[in-house]
């Protein structure tokens, strides 16, 4: 029995256990400070579903040896292109949603290919360059959103202006298109977005399948030890590019899922800060710069989004003033900072071993 417990602790890791216990404590405190536990739980699940695929998008690149994808905004931009095109075409419901996804995928593949080629030129500095790529692609698209020939009055600035608005509502198109498939509603407060969770599970399955194929194995090996992979006849650069494309496409799909639940497409600076919560999520889940699993994604996203949802509402009700936004920002950045310092220690420990 002791052995079992020890094994579990070993596998879960202390940081996750502590954060998990903290989250549990928040849930237990919640009813006492008049936070509705069902609403909270529902919130956590919805946010989990919204972020899941964006966090999952970290996995291929990490496994391929390109590090954490700080260039997530690039993939998000591919997704945004799909989303606005789908709205432009006035497509609604699931058709609208899946059209957005289908349109986004080729953009994701194209951008991922270029991104991958670039990362192959800067081996060793992938993460720094990824950060630049993310930021500069946002800046570039900020110009493009003004210039692209979208015409739909639902999206362009009112009064005959040109260019797309910063926030576009999808209410009339595919708001909750996924969430509302087989939704489970219990009472007034609990709502389970079945469709979105199933879609997330499906994406996890696809990634899992990929890493069980010949190519997926080669990607993992190329990330684990490029010299070994090369000596085994694997084209390492190609494997890295494949991993980057996969990551970019997942990010594109992920943002569309996010938007259909959120209700809005956020252009311009919208994608700017998306990379950090996703990176923090997977790190909290126990991934390192060199290894990430789907389990890391699920655990990490749940913990990160859980804490992020619960802390502000609980503290808010304790101090009786509305500070939730401030608290959210503090908690979110605190977790991000913590997670990033973790990577560094993990990295140096690995080198010593």
């Amino acid at each position, binding site marked *: 029995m002791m*052995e079992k417990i020890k094994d579990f602790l*070993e596998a879960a890791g202390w940081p996750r256990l502590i954060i998990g216990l903290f989250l549990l404590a928040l849930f237990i405190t919640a009813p006492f400070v008049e936070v509705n536990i069902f609403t909270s739980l529902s919130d956590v699940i919805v946010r989990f579903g919204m972020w899941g695929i964006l966090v999952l998008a970290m996995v291929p690149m990490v496994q391929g040896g390109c590090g954490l994808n700080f260039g997530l905004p690039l993939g998000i931009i591919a997704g945004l292109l799909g989303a606005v095109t789908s709205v432009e075409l006035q497509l609604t419901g699931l058709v609208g949603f899946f059209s957005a996804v289908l349109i986004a995928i080729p953009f994701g593949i194209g951008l991922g290919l270029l991104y991958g080629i670039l990362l192959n030129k800067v081996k*060793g500095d992938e993460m720094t360059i990824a950060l630049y790529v993310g930021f500069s692609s946002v800046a570039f698209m900020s110009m493009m959103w003004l210039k692209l020939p979208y015409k739909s009055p639902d999206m362009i600035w009112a009064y005959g202006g040109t260019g797309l608005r910063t926030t576009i509502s999808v209410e009339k198109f595919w708001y909750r298109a996924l969430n509302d498939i087989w939704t489970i509603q219990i009472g007034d407060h609990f709502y389970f977005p079945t469709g979105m969770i199933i879609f997330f599970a499906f994406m996890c399955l696809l990634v899992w*399948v990929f890493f*069980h*194929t*010949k*190519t*997926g*194995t*080669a990607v*993992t*090996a190329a990330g*684990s*030890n490029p*010299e*070994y*992979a*090369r*000596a*085994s*006849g*694997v*084209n390492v650069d190609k494997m890295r590019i494949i991993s980057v494309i996969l990551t970019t496409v997942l990010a594109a799909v992920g943002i569309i899922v996010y938007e259909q639940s959120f209700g809005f497409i956020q252009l311009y600076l919208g994608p700017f800060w998306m990379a950090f919560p996703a990176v923090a999520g997977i790190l909290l889940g126990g991934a390192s710069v*060199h*290894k990430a699993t789907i389990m890391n994604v699920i655990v990490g996203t749940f913990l990160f989004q859980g804490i992020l949802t619960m802390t502000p509402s609980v503290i808010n009700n304790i101090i009786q003033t509305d500070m939730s936004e401030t608290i959210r920002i503090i908690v979110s950045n605190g977790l991000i900072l913590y997670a990033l310092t973790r990577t*560094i220690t993990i*990295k*140096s*420990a690995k*080198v*010593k*071993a």
Partner: protein
Amino acid sequence: MPDDILLKMKNITKDFYGNQVLTGVNMELKRGHILGLVGENGAGKSTLMNILFGSTVIKETGGFTGEIELDGKICNFESPFDALDAGVGMVHQEFMLIPGFQAAENIMLNRELTQRNFWVDVFGERLSSLKNEEMIKRAQKAIDTVGVDLDAKTLVSEMPVAHKQFTEIAREIDREATKLLILDEPTAVLTESEAEIMLSVVRRLADMGISVIFISHRLKEIMQICNELVVLRDGKLVKEVPTNETNPEKISEWMVGREIGGGPAREAPVKQTEEMETVLKVRNLWVDMPGERVINVDLDIKKGEIFGIGGLAGQGKLGIPNGIMGLYPAGGKVEFQGKKIKLNNPRFALDSGMAFVSEDRRDVGLLLEEPIDWNISFTVMQTQEKYLKKILGGLIKWRDDKAIAKLAQEYIDLLEIRCTSSKQLAKELSGGNQQKVCLAKAFAVRPDLLFVSEPTRGIDVGAKQLVLDTLHEYNEKYGITIIVCSSELEELRSISDRVAIVSEGRIAGILSPTAPLKEFGALMLEA
């Protein structure tokens, strides 16, 4: 005199997640003495030394129990820095040098910086600009003490392995306060003459009053320089004797717990190669492998022979397989089975039916972070599409984890790889067992021609025979042509049908293994 004792280790016990590796080990070491530490692969030698040195792996895997007394003070080191402060230095089984830095920088750098690669990543540029004349002079002095011909300004990445080894030793002796030096298989990559230099350095250090713990699988070396020796078997100390009261045969018996034959003795007759068909034709081969440059090599390898390549480190013997297999930039003409081999293209070489066991098991040979079964099956899976299940008419090539585990288990049994299961990570294996995994990987490919570099590096006496026998068996049974590069001449002579000696990037001559030792020596030193 009791205060003659520098080090006492009492009742040292250690397990890795329930896998008992050391049980109640007690040992003592006198000042200025050299203690030989011997035992089979996986007996726990490196682990015992890592405990003594306070290595982080030990703490990360749950610590150990027992007591270490240095100079009469109890000191269970928390980290290698504590150990260094207390005057304990260690040269690890695998290199711990920063490739892009000069020898001098590696010697002079604070240990902390050489170990924490993260800081090197961040501050690399700045650190490498620290080189001043003073530093280089001091480093050169340390190198000279070691007694090798090496310029302190040479980049580590450009050095032959032997020089890396000497650089590591120089780093340890540069520290003035060193009282105890741990050397984990320092001679494994050295040829006899280089090992000879190494041994005399160690002897000199001992005469200066430094105590040394010396790990080696070459019992001759142990007999030659150690005052006492300690034998570990399955994590238990089975014998502690003064060296002059024993002999290598007895030591081997203690190590394995049964009687075993003497060193590598030649069993199979030497094949007559003149009449045999040429399978690999090499003309004007040059290879740009740092530290092992090949300048101009012509070779005709016969189908079905075992061909040995020897020579001093740095002369280019390792460059030959690395170049032909496409791992380093190369040029010239290579023809295998009548087909021209594209150089600089590992895939092409593999697809043509050649395979390679690299001498560099950490960087090229293994996926340290992955399990044994992946390590063994990966190459054959990628190049021959074996161990894959085709689903949806071949659209999806699904990894057959069961078949992979089975393949791995076969080789674990065949080569007696000591591990908890085929799912154990390669980095958790002892050095010698890692070497066996590398061999298994190449065997699994079932190539027509197999290159093996330093096949028995770090492998214990018993297992060495096993590995050599296995090479023989594959040669006989499957008709695989084998080219062995080794720094151990004895080994080459024991299994090869012909032995070539490489000197200054060229073939100095090809001899029969039965030729007198003198002739080999003459070729090696020919310049």
